[in-house]
């Protein structure tokens, strides 16, 4: 087997608590499909047959019991539960499943919605025998108004500085603004080996990583690393150029340390050393070099290499903020070609449904309603003379007559009273909006949620 897929679905969605306090993030509906369906569909399309899904007990229960959450994927899902309050980072979760990991892993986050060609990332991993290979995308500005946002958008969200070499594939430098005190510090050894470096800041990290098996074993020994993105990736990027990784003596030691637990220690070391010889022979005889202008061999003799594939065009979103969630709902229909109006929805003839709206299963849309650029969830009831524009309505919502909903997000099981006028609001789960209420740019959530700090 070449690669094992691991899907991280235990995250809490800490940046959109208004949406996730009732529904766990992996099951948030995007385009009427649970968020976790998108990465699973991506993996299925490229040909994976089994996925290890790391998630919480709550999500596992909802997947197995709730009929609304249908994951119609043909792959075999191996659900591994971790405690919700254990505060495990992604690297901790990988350490947790170390026994199941038998080959190199492809780690995907549950909030990734993309149509990227995964073979580009995996080809870099294979061809250059890389330790890490990841996917990034040029960030797109979010154009939709976000409900509940007062004032201008904060630009201060911590930027990531990503340094790539001239080819745009080799990852040389990665740091977050929070970790840098005064300025970007680049070691001279890196500049000597790669004199031309392009530093980019407007990139979205897709949280899709190909990692070698030895990295997972390394994580098992180093319990201090708890997050893949925050700690492991910058560590590996720095380690590419550290003097200790490049000296051959240390490699043999670490080789032996890693194989300490195996029974046929000597045989394995013998095999790997003979194969290393052949690989070395190949590299010696091959007339290829990844850089030119200095006297060093290919890859500067380094054994640890990190690569990145930066997507120029295409959809790549990480649904971890409200703005991203709304944007994803707009674009998600392009990723699958199911009919916009579900066949089991009861839609009366005198309503206007725009071409880019999605109506979920078992909905009831009554006369004289107008639905434009919106998503209507499963089992939602929309009464007469309702105007829904640019909104996301989740499952089980009831919208009484004469309402006007614009640019809002209505969470599941909410009830909107008659004649209510909701503009750019976020209505929490199971909330009731009074009839004839007028709300603009508000976040309406329950009092129990307000207590959670």
């Amino acid at each position, binding site marked *: 087997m070449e690669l094992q897929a691991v899907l991280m679905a235990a995250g809490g969605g800490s940046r959109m608590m208004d949406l996730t306090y009732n529904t766990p993030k992996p099951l948030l509906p995007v385009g009427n499909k649970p968020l976790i369906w998108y990465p699973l569909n991506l993996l299925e399309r490229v040909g*994976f047959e089994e996925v290890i899904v790391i998630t919480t007990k709550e999500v596992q229960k909802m997947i197995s019991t709730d009929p609304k959450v249908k994951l119609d994927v043909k792959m075999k899902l191996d659900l591994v539960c971790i405690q919700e309050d254990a505060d495990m980072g992604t690297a901790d979760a990988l350490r947790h499943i170390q026994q199941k990991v038998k080959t190199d892993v492809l780690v995907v986050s549950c909030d990734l919605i993309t149509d990227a060609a995964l073979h580009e990332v995996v080809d870099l991993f294979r061809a250059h025998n890389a330790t890490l290979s990841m996917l990034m995308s040029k960030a797109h500005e979010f154009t939709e108004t976000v409900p509940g946002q007062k004032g201008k958008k904060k630009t201060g969200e911590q930027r990531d500085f990503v340094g790539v070499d001239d080819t745009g594939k080799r990852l040389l430098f990665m740091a977050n603004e929070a970790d840098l005190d005064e300025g970007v510090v680049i070691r001279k050894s890196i500049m000597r080996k790669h004199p031309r470096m392009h530093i980019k800041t407007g990139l979205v990290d897709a949280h899709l990583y190909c990692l070698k098996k030895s990295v997972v074993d390394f994580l098992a020994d180093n319990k201090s690393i708890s997050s893949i993105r925050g700690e492991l990736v910058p560590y590996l990027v720095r380690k590419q150029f550290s003097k200790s990784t490049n000296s051959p003596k240390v490699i043999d030691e670490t080789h032996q340390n890693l194989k300490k637990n195996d029974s046929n220690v000597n045989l394995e070391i013998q095999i790997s050393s003979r194969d290393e010889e052949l690989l070395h022979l190949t590299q010696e005889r*091959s*007339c*290829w070099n990844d850089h030119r202008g200095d006297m060093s061999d290919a890859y500067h003799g380094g054994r640890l290499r990190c690569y990145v594939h930066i997507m120029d065009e295409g959809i790549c979103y990480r649904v971890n903020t409200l703005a991203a969630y709304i944007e994803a709902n707009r674009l998600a229909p392009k990723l699958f070609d199911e009919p916009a109006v579900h066949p089991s929805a009861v839609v009366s003839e005198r309503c206007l449904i725009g071409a880019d709206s999605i109506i979920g299963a078992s909905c009831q849309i009554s006369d004289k309603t107008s639905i434009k650029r919106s998503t209507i969830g499963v089992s939602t009831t929309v009464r007469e003379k309702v105007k829904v524009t640019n909104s996301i309505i989740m499952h089980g919502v009831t919208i009484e007559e004469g309402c006007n909903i614009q640019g809002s997000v209505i969470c599941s099981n909410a009830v909107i009273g008659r004649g209510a006028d909701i503009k750019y609001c976020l209505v929490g789960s199971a909330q009731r909006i009074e009839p004839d209420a007028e709300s603009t740019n508000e976040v309406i959530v329950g009092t129990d949620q307000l207590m959670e700090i």
Partner: protein
Amino acid sequence: SSILHIAAVVVSGTSVVVYMYTWCLSSSIHISAVVVSMFSTIICGFLFLLVVKRLPEHVQVDDPAVVKRLAKKLERQQIPLRSDYGYKVSLFSHLHQYSRKAPLTQQLSIPSTVIHPSIVRLGLQYSQGIVAGSNARSVALLHAFKQVIRDYTTPPNEELSRDLVNKLKPYISFLNQCRPLSASMGNAIKYIKKEISNIPSQCKEEEAKTKLLTCIDRYIEEKIVLAAKAISKYAIEKISDGDVILVYGCSSLVNNILCEAFEKSRKFRVIVVDSRPRLEGREALRRLVQRGISCTYVLISALSYILPEVSKVFLGAHALLANGYVMSRVGTSQIALVARTFNVPVLVCCETYKFCEKVQTDSFVSNELDDPDDLMVTRKGKTQLENWQDVSSLGLLNLVYDVTPPDFVDLVITDLGMIPCTSVPVVLRVKNLDQ
């Protein structure tokens, strides 16, 4: 082509019939003419089909029947078909031309189950040019086959000697799609297949696998590593102090020879000749200068300018053909031609495992077309040939190999000794006898 075959058989058959009939008449043996003619046509047809080999598929790309056959074969082996790219110059329209930006892995499932992961990795490295050069490709191929053999388990009711060979066939097709196989790779594959089929059926699986792995190690050690040492020993005899040696491109063997000669304290300097679009000479230059050899670097357009300074030319080879022609990187025949004009001796260094039984007298019939986009060059942000596909009368040709006649080559240095170019069939015959 089958019509030609039949026509040739008929013509030769009738000629033999006529001959035998006249012989019978002259020697007054009264055998029925009908019997004689039937007998002779059968023998002729048989002999003809035995002797004439079918043309390989990779040089018949403009024949739709052959392409269809290839597609069916690949479908049976569950390997995706790589489609040709761009306009092909008409003289070479019978060859494949692939684009590097459309790798074969696009159509494969990502945790590749049909093809062993190390073979997928190898195919990628071939198509992206990370493993380039005849020796490097063979060593990498054998290394990947070692992984395949290690991970192989015989299915029940099957014999390892037959099943493993069948397992290797789709891998070889896959590698062929990524990049056409070289002659050295072909010989290595033939060797492995022979070794696998020679495994006795009562041999246990573990034993058979270790035997195969040691065979492969021995092959690499004998044919590549030790051969290089032997060739260096012979070649160093030919290098004298004060020599100016010209090399072309990056041949691992020639670089090895020069480094060894330098270590044995021969005083010489090297002129590295390079050509676009591969510019492999830069890598050769780096390796030589790293050792301390003083080098000069020119492009092939300056060849006749620099040749008066040169005392010897050392060339590497991709393969040595059965009629003494040397198949090597495109540009080699030019170097040999100009060197002959200047009366400079040309020495070709080639291991015996690269000798192949093909016969070629020109570079058109069988060659390799590389990605035409490699010829595009971006200077100051402008790429002149960016939209070359839109210009209907423009074709870009990126040839990889060319063939040098034996009249331009003075000596071939092999691990068996220093032989003239025309002794290649003798070496092949001796090799076949050995096996």
